[in-house]
């Protein structure tokens, strides 16, 4: 599973992404977020702010209840400020 981080999340974690292999019971975004929060102190701090984080699964913005699969690309980012 490919994870990507953008903007302040990328800066806080000091990585722009990581390839992970979560356990079988991680079946939606919410459980993935909880699992990622356990990876390090930095991860924990970032994912405590989940309310100000948006999530995309395969380039579509989704809610925490969205199902995820092994080969998905999952991105975490703040609200967009382009244009």
């Amino acid at each position, binding site marked *: 599973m490919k994870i990507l981080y*953008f903007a302040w999340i990328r800066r806080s974690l000091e990585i722009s992404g990581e390839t992970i292999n979560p356990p079988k019971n991680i079946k939606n975004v919410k459980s993935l977020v909880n699992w990622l929060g356990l990876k390090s102190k930095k991860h924990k701090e970032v994912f405590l702010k989940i309310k100000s984080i948006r999530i995309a699964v395969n*380039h579509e913005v989704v809610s925490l209840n969205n199902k995820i699969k092994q080969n998905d690309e999952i991105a975490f*980012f*703040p*609200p*967009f*400020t*382009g244009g």
Partner: protein
Amino acid sequence: MIKIQKKNFNFSEENKKLLKNNSGAIVTFIGVVRGKTKTKKIQSINIECYLKMAEKKLEEVEMIANKKWKLNNCIIIHRYGKIKPGEKIVYIATSAEHRKNAFKSCEFIIDYLKTKAPFWKLEKINSKEMYVRLKKKDEKNLKKWENII
């Protein structure tokens, strides 16, 4: 046609492509880095981009606009990377037989990009970098297009 690129662009070259196809009206929008806000002077901005998703979203909005307003032509260019005050960030051009469709589609596309396309602005002010916050106004602007998207 959509383009996501680091380098600056020349809108006259882009504009030339629009004078075709029996279009009676061409509307363009150019978004520019401002040199200052109410309280601060901006040295430069750095736009971060989720490239694959941005390509998808730009193609999506182009398709929606083409279909809804029967455009003859649609060009969307969005830059990322370091951009200085006075430089262009985004260029949108729409052409249609009549002007109302060209105006509406162009305004729709920029409203859409502001809240749906994965770009993030980092401002440099007094040598400090800070991410720009989402403007409530931009979320509100998109509401008027609710029946379209």
